[in-house]
């Protein structure tokens, strides 16, 4: 039988062997001989750190106490690996594409590189993992004490054992976990050592299992009979608890920092996951295969002690199988050490990357973040973190004093890290998930979990605040962890699980729906959710030429082809390069960013340029998607602009129309007022004189005759006015009927002169050239005559010469005929030329104005209807009007 010192020696030898494996693996990796290291089996074995000392020893204990419930711890991961394999694959792909270093980094990266979230997840991980590390130390020291007390020697200080174990583990982790600051954070030596440990613990438990089945019992049949007869078979199945624990274990395999480390960070080839997909469940099945037989044997054998958690060790010991017991001890030791090593490594990465480094960078030392000692600072931070975490684990172990409460910390720890699950899975599957939602969910879940499980556990261990625990703080009953919301929880773990994850998920979804993601969040969200669409492209993203080309493609999408190409060409010329592609120098990148910022905003521009040149985490496709989105927004806004321009134009047109209508209305009023005036004036005379005539006694016959004459004339004037108005109205509305026919121009003029009373002796001399007038017209002769009459009578009325004379001349233009009427008067004053064709325009002439002023307006309308024209021809001396007849209306006879 080995004594304490012998056991320590065995441990030291074992650890030295691990060192050797790790060193050999590191060296092989450096030499490029990585076949063994790079095998999917190594990857699968490294995943076995899921099975810690807690499960190595505790599963048998759990089986002895609660029957098959221990299976849930294996069932959860198995279901994830089989049913949710796609999710694992996505996580691994994202982790590789984004070069994620830890689960905190993953969450932070997904939600726009939020440092707040990273700190939150890191704290949660530390809080959830520290008790777990303590648990490992406890199991190792416990196994130490069992082993040594069973031997001849004993009474050694087991507490010191824990110190040495913790120190040794810290040393190992520091040596193999912080050898370099590789970007991909892979540790081949460490992983190889862990794989070796996985073999040791599996071999140990299988050996004990085989021994109890074939060595103690008489083979499987006998063993099955024993199981049938044992209380294990009779243990009741609690369906809710089974489902809850299975789900919790499934969540833990995704969220535990150490699992994330081996599953994602240490993954060197995505295809390994396919093997692990069946091999890891197989490993879990094998390691759980003999749990029940060992438990049954332990319960039936005398001398196995009263702690079923140690049956694995006490069964071989009680049967005098020291060699087997030693193997079991090493199995438990390996399970504990491998978990602690990986957990410490994962936590130290988070703590140093998300807490220590940012603080250091913010401090005075960090003024120049690109200084050379950055590297050593990061390594030191990592090492200090590892030591601190293990120290914390040891402190927790010491404080809890190895009580039974520590044993239950495993599941509590699971639920703690499971608070990351909604943000993790949501971030991978849902682009709409936002930083706010993730922070709210994780924060609230964390608080509920800590209050309902963690604090009561610590309080129980230390005997603290029993009243607060039972009755709630300040006597507020519904806040009491033992009966949250007044629920008398029969199973505190399940209650806490439903409450914490329920609140967590609800707040995560609501927070995401009611907050707006930053550009970087949107980019990262697309990256994560659509990781399979573009992660291939990520690999080709390092060359400067490629970067310049892609920068240009992106710039073209955002700034438009012309501007982008011009910008790049000018920059290239400045650098003395041909081909229009400049080197992506800092100067050029600054310039490009400024240009892009004009279109997409500073933050997005910076993110886009940084992502492309950093060759880090965003594919071209995603950037282009963002660019397209931006272009669409710009397109939309330019459409809006065009629309508002259109509206402005429409409004302008409406204003014009309105102004025109107002103007027309004013004109109509003026016209009506004119008509009123024109009608009332003759009526005034008529009324006045008729009233005079009615008072017959005072009027003599001569006056009576004269007044009657005036009344008669004014009546005619009224009639004429009404005729003119009707005529004008018909002409202007276009409803005029033309009676076209053949007519000789000379005849029409003859008729007009007669009608105007301007034949010889009519007060005006008319000169004509009959030969010129020998033109045959196709026109409405009556209407044409009406125009001529108007022009001739105007000349009669207004020509102010001593001897009034009117010259009518016909000019054949080839394309139609002009008929000009020129008198020898003083003509029309220039300032009134524009007015003469207006309705009611009467010129201020010395002779007065007997007409209503509609004649020329009517004449011009008529000529328009006849497809001709009537103009006033400004000329020195005399008024000249020109009537133009269209070509088809005339032909020389």
């Amino acid at each position, binding site marked *: 039988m080995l004594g304490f010192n012998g056991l320590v020696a065995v441990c030291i030898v074992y650890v030295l062997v691990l060192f050797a494996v790790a060193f050999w693996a590191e060296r092989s990796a450096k030499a490029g001989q990585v076949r063994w290291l790079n095998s999917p089996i190594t990857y699968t074995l490294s995943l076995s750190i899921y099975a810690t000392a807690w499960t190595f020893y505790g599963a048998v204990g759990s089986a002895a106490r609660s029957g098959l419930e221990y299976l849930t711890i294996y069932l959860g991961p198995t279901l994830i690996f089989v049913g949710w394999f796609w999710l694992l694959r996505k996580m691994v792909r994202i982790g590789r594409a984004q070069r994620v270093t830890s689960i905190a980094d993953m969450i932070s990266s997904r939600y726009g590189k939020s440092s707040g979230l990273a700190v939150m997840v890191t704290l949660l991980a530390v809080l959830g993992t520290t008790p777990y590390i303590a648990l490992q130390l406890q199991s190792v020291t416990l196994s130490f004490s069992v082993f040594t007390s069973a031997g001849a020697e004993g009474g050694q200080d087991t507490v010191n054992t824990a110190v040495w174990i913790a120190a040794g583990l810290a040393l190992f982790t520091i040596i193999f976990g912080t050898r370099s600051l590789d970007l991909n954070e892979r540790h081949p030596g460490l992983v190889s050592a862990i794989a070796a440990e996985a073999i040791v613990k599996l071999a140990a438990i299988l050996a004990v299992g085989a021994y109890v089945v074939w060595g103690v019992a008489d083979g499987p049949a006998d063993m099955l009979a024993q199981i049938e007869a044992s209380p294990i078979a009779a243990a009741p199945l609690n369906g809710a608890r089974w489902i809850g624990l299975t789900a919790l274990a499934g969540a833990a395999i995704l969220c535990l920092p150490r699992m994330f480390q081996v599953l994602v960070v240490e993954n060197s080839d995505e295809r390994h996951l396919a093997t692990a997909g069946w091999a890891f469940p197989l490993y879990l099945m094998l390691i759980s295969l003999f749990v029940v037989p060992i438990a049954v044997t332990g319960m039936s054998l005398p001398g196995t002690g009263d702690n079923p958690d140690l049956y694995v060790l006490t069964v071989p010991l009680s049967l005098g199988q020291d060699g087997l017991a030693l193997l079991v001890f090493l199995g438990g030791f390996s399970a504990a050490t491998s978990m602690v090593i990986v957990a410490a490594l994962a936590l130290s990465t988070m703590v140093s990357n998300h807490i220590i480094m940012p603080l250091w960078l913010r401090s005075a030392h960090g003024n120049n973040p690109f200084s050379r000692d950055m590297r050593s600072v990061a390594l030191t931070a990592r090492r200090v973190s590892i030591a601190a975490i293990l120290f914390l684990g040891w402190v927790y172990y010491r404080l809890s004093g190895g009580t039974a409460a520590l044993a239950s910390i495993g599941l509590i720890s699971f639920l703690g890290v499971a608070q990351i699950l909604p943000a993790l899975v949501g971030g991978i599957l849902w682009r709409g998930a936002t930083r706010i939602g993730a922070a709210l969910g994780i924060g609230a879940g964390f608080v509920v979990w800590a209050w309902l499980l963690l604090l009561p556990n610590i309080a129980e261990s230390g005997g603290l605040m029993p009243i607060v625990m039972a009755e709630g703080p300040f006597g507020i009953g519904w806040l009491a962890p033992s009966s949250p919301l007044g629920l008398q929880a029969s199973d505190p773990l399940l209650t806490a699980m439903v409450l914490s994850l329920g609140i967590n998920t609800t707040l995560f979804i609501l927070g995401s729906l009611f907050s707006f993601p930053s550009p970087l969040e949107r980019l990262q969200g697309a990256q994560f959710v659509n990781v399979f669409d573009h992660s291939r492209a990520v690999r080709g993203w390092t060359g400067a030429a490629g970067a310049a080309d892609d920068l240009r493609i992106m710039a073209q999408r955002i700034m438009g082809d012309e501007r982008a190409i011009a910008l790049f060409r000018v920059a290239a010329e400045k650098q003395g390069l041909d081909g229009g592609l400049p080197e992506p120098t800092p100067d050029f990148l600054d310039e490009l960013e400024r240009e892009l910022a004009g279109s997409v905003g500073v933050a997005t521009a910076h993110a886009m340029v940084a992502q492309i040149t950093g060759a880090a985490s965003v594919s071209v496709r995603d950037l282009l998607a963002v660019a397209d989105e931006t272009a669409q927004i710009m397109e939309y806004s330019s459409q809006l602009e065009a629309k508002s321009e259109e509206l402005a134009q429409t409004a302008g047109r409406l204003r014009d129309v309105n102004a025109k209508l107002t103007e027309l209305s004013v004109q109509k009023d003026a016209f009506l*007022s004119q008509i009123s005036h024109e009608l*009332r004036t003759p*009526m005034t005379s008529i009324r006045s*004189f008729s009233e*005079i005539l009615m008072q017959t006694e005072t009027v003599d016959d001569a006056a009576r005759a004269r007044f009657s004459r*005036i009344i008669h004339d004014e009546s005619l004037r009224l009639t004429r006015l009404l005729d003119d108005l009707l005529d004008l109205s018909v002409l202007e509305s276009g409803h005029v009927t033309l009676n076209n026919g053949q007519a000789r121009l000379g005849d029409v003029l003859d008729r007009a002169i007669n009608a105007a009373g301007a034949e010889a002796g009519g007060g005006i001399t008319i000169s004509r050239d009959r030969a010129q007038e020998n033109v045959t017209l196709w026109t409405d002769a009556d209407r044409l005559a009406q125009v001529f009459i108007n022009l001739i009578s105007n000349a009669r009325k207004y020509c102010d010469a001593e001897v009034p004379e009117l010259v009518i001349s016909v000019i054949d233009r080839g394309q139609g005929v002009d008929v000009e009427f020129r008198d020898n008067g003083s003509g029309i004053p220039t300032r009134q030329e524009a007015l003469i064709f207006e309705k009611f325009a009467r010129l201020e002439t010395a*002779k007065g104005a007997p007409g209503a002023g509609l004649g020329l307006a009517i004449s011009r309308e008529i000529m328009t209807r006849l497809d001709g024209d009537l103009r006033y021809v400004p000329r020195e001396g005399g008024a000249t009007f020109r009537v133009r007849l269209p070509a088809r209306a005339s032909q020389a006879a």
Partner: protein
Amino acid sequence: MKQDNDTLGAAQPLGTGPGTILIVEDESNILEALTFILSRAGWDVRGHGKGDSALGEVARLGPDLLVLDVMLPGMSGFDILRSLRAAPETKDLPVVMLTAKGQSQDRDQARALGADAFLTKPFSNDELLQVITELTPSIAARRAVAGQG
């Protein structure tokens, strides 16, 4: 029918009638009718047919009452009235305005400018005489002041 409006109207010897009336009206027939009516009522009536020279005519004749058309060649009746009201000698000269437009804004403008009466064409002879009779007291008052001055 063309007529020289400037000198139209039957003049009556001063002192026999109530006073002198000047009619400024470009429609010769209307002028003739008004002259006939007012002369028969005992007024010394003078006619004038143009707007631009109407003020000169008022100054020359110094009538007791002015009958003023709105639509006049050269200068509108409103402008003439405004000038009359601006001059001290004619600021209280009784003025009867005539308009053929018949819009209320003409009436308002005439009142605002200080017309004493306003008639819309066509009006009855009695209406005109009535309006002028109503103005007789102010004619008399103005005469009295002028006599004292």
